[in-house]
């Protein structure tokens, strides 16, 4: 009977299992590799069918208060999946025949774009842009441009009339820019068409680009913003991911070659990592997923992890070869020696990715599945396939000796570093680490959630989309960012004057909130209509007190899209925001909540929050709430694994403390570089811990071995650092350089991830090479061992 509480039993079990596995794998190495080859070919077939796929729905957090409101009323409110297309005259005003003709042509083209709600398209030329006028005959609502007017028949008088109507109808700032040089076309997109087909946003973006190409020339500019354009541009940018990954691959290959001076050993880890990538893509395809543009980096992160483990294997094998072993023996030793730390590291990375499932956003969950699958495959490709394939190599002694010489000379400059294991120096290191830790914790308080930059946060400031977004936000009252607050009441509330009055007070409160550019609301429409019905007298711009009057105005407003349900059971307030910085949205939401607490009206519920800013706020909320549990789970996994394998709290502390310090330094870095915590950067932080622990595992693994062999702690640490130090430093730098190239990506989030990840690789390496040994020494000094160190049997040779 195995008692897992008994060290010896566990050791024996592990030892037996490892030996069995090793014998099995190496005895049947040819069929094993053949089988892998066939499997890879099969998966490759599916992997080739993988396409990039984006979706609006899957970015919505499931079950969040705001998203519930959004979903419940999405049919009644302005959709968050809107396209705003602006026709801008470069040199003149929009009020010329040529400009209005161009606007007409673009409007027609937009109406016939696929997936567009045709009747909902609005521009100066569409019949749903109505101007309310009081005439001798009574109230009249006419289109801005009468149906009888065509672009050919435009005269100066007619244009002047259109201009007057536009201003009268209050369309300056909505359909025409404030500087009157451009006009807007608004269209709503349905993600699923009537046949049940989903929009392919990548393809859709092509038709938008064609539209732009067709109508943009030296006289007119076509600006397009909206979710479809945004995600399309991201997908376009994401396709350049391949180039960056290619560059990273070449850099990595060159570095590995410099390290091992053998083409075969260079290609081996890369081919192994690539194999698992193929499996991963194939599996994704089989699961029915596409590659999300926002998650496109993850497979390549996994690839990087693979290379990192591969280098450790090569390091081990060359070391064994230099000691005169045959290729097969060396490979077997490496398999045996690295299986435990390798599995530990990969399981940690696996758990890190799995914790992403905590965030209830379908896209993030998809990403979690993608990544954890990839890491899972790594266990096979890097820890088994690699050494098994290496056992076929025939290498002469000369190569091994040269390799050993190189190793010695490289290790020479590691010697000063290895002296951190001396207690005096260790104390200095711990002191410095404590100071840095304190500073990092202090500096990383009030970290930013969400994004700081205006426009689409995934794209760079200077990207066409963001330039368009800024131009539109500057010239129109209705920018890209709006938050919709919903007033719920009982059905048939259209004569409940109190609701309008209550909402009117709310609107006044919100109008005076920093970050709110303008407000469009049911109460505001009541005011406008009441004023309009009274000859436009400013003194009549109020929410009417008379029930019948109130009710008939409500009927009027109900004919417009986006302000209410027909029976007034829901009326809306749209708050147009200056940007979508998390602090801006947060401030506005706080103000809404304060109002909700301070003012109540019986039967009326104020609900947050639809609009794209409402969705963003929900995402920020989820990210913020998921962060701590995710980190806790990841650290808990590391602690559990280390405790299980080494059965020593010293190991737990020595492995986890450097990681904790590294994580907080990472937070500090994020704050300094204004990188917010988002669905893109949160996985990076969690993963950084998962990868950072690799270094700790590989060093600690050697340390245990030397301690078990009877060396004292200082000597054991020196040996460990000299043996794996080069490989660890080399891996960290290689990976960091590889991902640092992403900083040149045209995608902002990719650049952020690249910089953050490169930084975290280096920080965690430095921590593992300095703080870990220093901690280990002092833990040993403070808590001397009563019994000799036991490493899982196999490690003791």
């Amino acid at each position: 009977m195995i008692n897992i509480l008994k060290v010896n039993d566990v050791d024996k079990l592990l030892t037996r299992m490892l030996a069995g596995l090793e014998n099995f794998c190496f005895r049947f190495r040819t069929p094993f590799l053949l089988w892998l080859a066939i499997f890879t070919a099969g998966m490759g077939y599916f992997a080739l069918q993988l396409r990039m796929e984006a979706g609006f729905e899957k970015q919505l957090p499931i079950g969040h208060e705001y998203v519930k409101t959004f979903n419940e009323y999405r049919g009644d409110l302005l959709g968050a999946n809107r396209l705003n297309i602006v026709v801008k005259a470069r040199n003149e005003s929009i009020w010329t025949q040529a400009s209005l003709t161009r606007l007409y042509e673009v409007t027609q083209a937009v109406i016939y774009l696929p997936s567009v709600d045709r009747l909902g398209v609005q521009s100066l030329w569409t019949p749903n842009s109505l101007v309310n006028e009081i005439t001798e005959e009574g109230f009249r609502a006419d289109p801005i441009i009468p149906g009888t007017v065509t672009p050919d028949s435009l005269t100066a008088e007619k244009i002047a009339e259109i201009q007057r109507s536009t201003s009268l109808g209050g369309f300056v700032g909505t359909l025409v820019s404030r500087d009157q040089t451009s006009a807007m076309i608004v269209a709503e997109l349905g993600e699923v068409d009537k046949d049940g087909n989903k929009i392919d946003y990548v393809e859709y973006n092509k038709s938008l680009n064609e539209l732009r190409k067709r109508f943009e020339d030296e006289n007119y500019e076509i600006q397009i913003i909206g979710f479809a354009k945004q995600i399309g541009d991201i997908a376009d940018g994401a396709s350049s991911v391949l180039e960056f990954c290619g560059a990273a691959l070449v850099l990595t290959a060159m570095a590995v070659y410099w390290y091992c001076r053998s083409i075969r050993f260079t290609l081996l880890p890369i081919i192994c990592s690539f194999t698992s990538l193929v499996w991963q893509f194939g599996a994704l395809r089989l699961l029915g997923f596409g590659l999300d543009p926002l998650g496109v980096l993850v497979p390549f992160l996994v690839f990087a992890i693979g290379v990192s483990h591969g280098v450790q294997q090569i390091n081990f094998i060359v070391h064994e070869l230099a000691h005169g072993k045959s290729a097969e023996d060396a490979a077997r030793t490496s398999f045996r020696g690295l299986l435990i730390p390798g599995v530990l590291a990969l399981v940690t990375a696996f758990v890190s990715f799995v914790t992403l499932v905590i965030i209830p956003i379908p896209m993030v969950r998809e990403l979690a599945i993608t990544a954890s699958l990839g890491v899972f495959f790594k266990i096979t490709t890097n820890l088994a396939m690699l050494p098994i394939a290496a056992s076929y190599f025939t290498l002469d002694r000369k190569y091994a000796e040269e390799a050993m010489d190189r190793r010695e000379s490289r290790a020479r400059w590691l010697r000063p570093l290895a002296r951190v294991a001396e207690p005096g120096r260790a104390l200095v290191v711990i002191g410095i680490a404590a100071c840095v830790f304190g500073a990092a914790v202090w500096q990383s308080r009030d970290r930013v959630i969400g994004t700081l930059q205006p426009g689409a946060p995934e794209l760079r400031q200077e990207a066409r989309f963001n330039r368009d977004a800024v131009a539109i936000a500057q010239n129109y009252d209705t920018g890209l960012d709006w938050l919709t607050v919903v007033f719920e009441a009982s059905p048939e509330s259209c004569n409940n004057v109190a609701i309008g009055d209550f909402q009117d007070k709310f609107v006044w409160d919100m109008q005076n909130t920093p970050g709110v550019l303008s407000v469009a609301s049911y109460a505001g429409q009541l005011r406008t209509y009441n004023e309009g019905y009274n000859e436009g007298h400013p003194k009549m711009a109020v929410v009417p007190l008379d029930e019948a009057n109130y009710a008939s105005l409500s009927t009027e407003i109900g004919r417009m899209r986006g302000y209410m349900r027909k029976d007034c059971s829901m009326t809306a307030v749209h708050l147009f925001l200056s940007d979508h910085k998390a602090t801006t949205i947060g401030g506005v939401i706080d103000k809404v909540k304060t109002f909700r607490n301070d003012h109540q009206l019986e039967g009326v519920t104020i609900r947050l929050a639809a609009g794209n800013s409402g969705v963003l706020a929900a995402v920020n909320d989820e990210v913020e709430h998921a962060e701590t549990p995710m980190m806790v789970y990841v650290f808990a996994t590391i602690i559990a694994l280390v405790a299980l394998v080494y059965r020593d709290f010293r190991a737990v502390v020595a492995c986890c403390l450097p990681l904790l310090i590294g994580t907080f330094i990472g937070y500090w870095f994020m704050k300094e570089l204004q990188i917010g915590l988002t669905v893109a950067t949160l996985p990076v932080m969690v993963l950084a811990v998962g990868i950072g622990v690799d270094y700790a595992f590989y060093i600690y693994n050697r340390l245990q071995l030397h301690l078990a062999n009877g060396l004292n702690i200082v000597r054991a640490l020196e040996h460990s650092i000299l043996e794996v130090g080069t490989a660890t430093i080399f891996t960290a730098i290689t990976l960091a350089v590889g991902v640092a190239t992403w900083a040149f990506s045209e995608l902002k989030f990719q650049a952020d991830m690249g910089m953050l990840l490169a930084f975290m690789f280096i920080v965690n390496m430095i921590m593992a090479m300095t703080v870990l040994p220093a901690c280990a020494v002092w833990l040993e000094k403070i808590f001397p061992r009563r019994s000799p160190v036991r490493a899982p049997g196999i490690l003791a040779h």
Partner: protein
Amino acid sequence: MKYFAAMSVKRLGATICLATGICALYAVQASAAVEQSEVRISPAVISQFATRAAILGAATAGQRVVAVGSYGTVLLSDDGGQSFRQARSVPVSSTLTSVSFVDEKHGWAVGHWGMILATEDGGDTWAVQRTDLKEDRPLFSVHFFDQNEGVAVGLWSLILRTGDGGKTWDRISVQDPDTGGESDRNLFKLFAAPSGTLFVSAERGSVLRSDDRGRTWSRLDTPYKGSLWSGLVMKDGTLLVGGLRGSLYRSRNGGSSWDQVRNDAHNSITDMVETSDRVVAVGLNGVRLESRDGGMTFVASQRDDRLSLTAAVIAPSGDVVTFSKTGIVGTGTSSAVSSK
């Protein structure tokens, strides 16, 4: 231009309902006895953005300029309209439309919800004298002769008069000479001659006149058929009234006969004042008219931002302070004004 008063909006509602076929809903609304929450009178919110509220009426209280507007906003300026602060305590947040002071301390403001407020400290704190939530009949204008006698007018020929400083208000009814029944013309603006004669510019081109401080009224008809929103008695006794789409009429005989004053403005005139050397009228969409010949001819200009001007008052310095739908505009002609 036919005008729809709020009363006719009910008719209009039915018409629209017929036209659009949403009658069922309308009928339900009319008959359903759904539990109603009542509108509540609550104090005006003190806000650093109060100066952005729509201002609808203004007056001077000694050296102070007092302006009133939407959301119970009352703004005070002690530097001739250069800077404003919000009144300390206003017990209502409904829309205020007009204000009148008899000295530097005593003033009254009126507005929607039948609201009449009074102050005894130059506009810093206010008390409710009257309100009426039963009937949606807003008051549009107020004028006090002294601390006791005052008149307020509003929708559908509503005339209220007090002889006790606002403690009690009597409703004065006016007959319509055309129909013989009670007049239902909207009464927009009270303006008084130094002699004490009081005028009201009103709907359908009419002007009411009272020579006994508001007890009895007679109707003067102008040739104009639209609404007259504003009016002024000039120093020489000439009457000037302004209405929709730049309409201006002038009478040199106390209202017996009127001449149209042609001008280039096409926007409704909301208020007018006379300074030592000119007459200034302001209106919707940023229109501003100036006359230097006693109102015989006007020069029109329009603000580039088309901001609707809603009220004007002469500051103690003699400057014209103007107000808009988005609050204070300021004194003099700003750079945003271009000649038309």
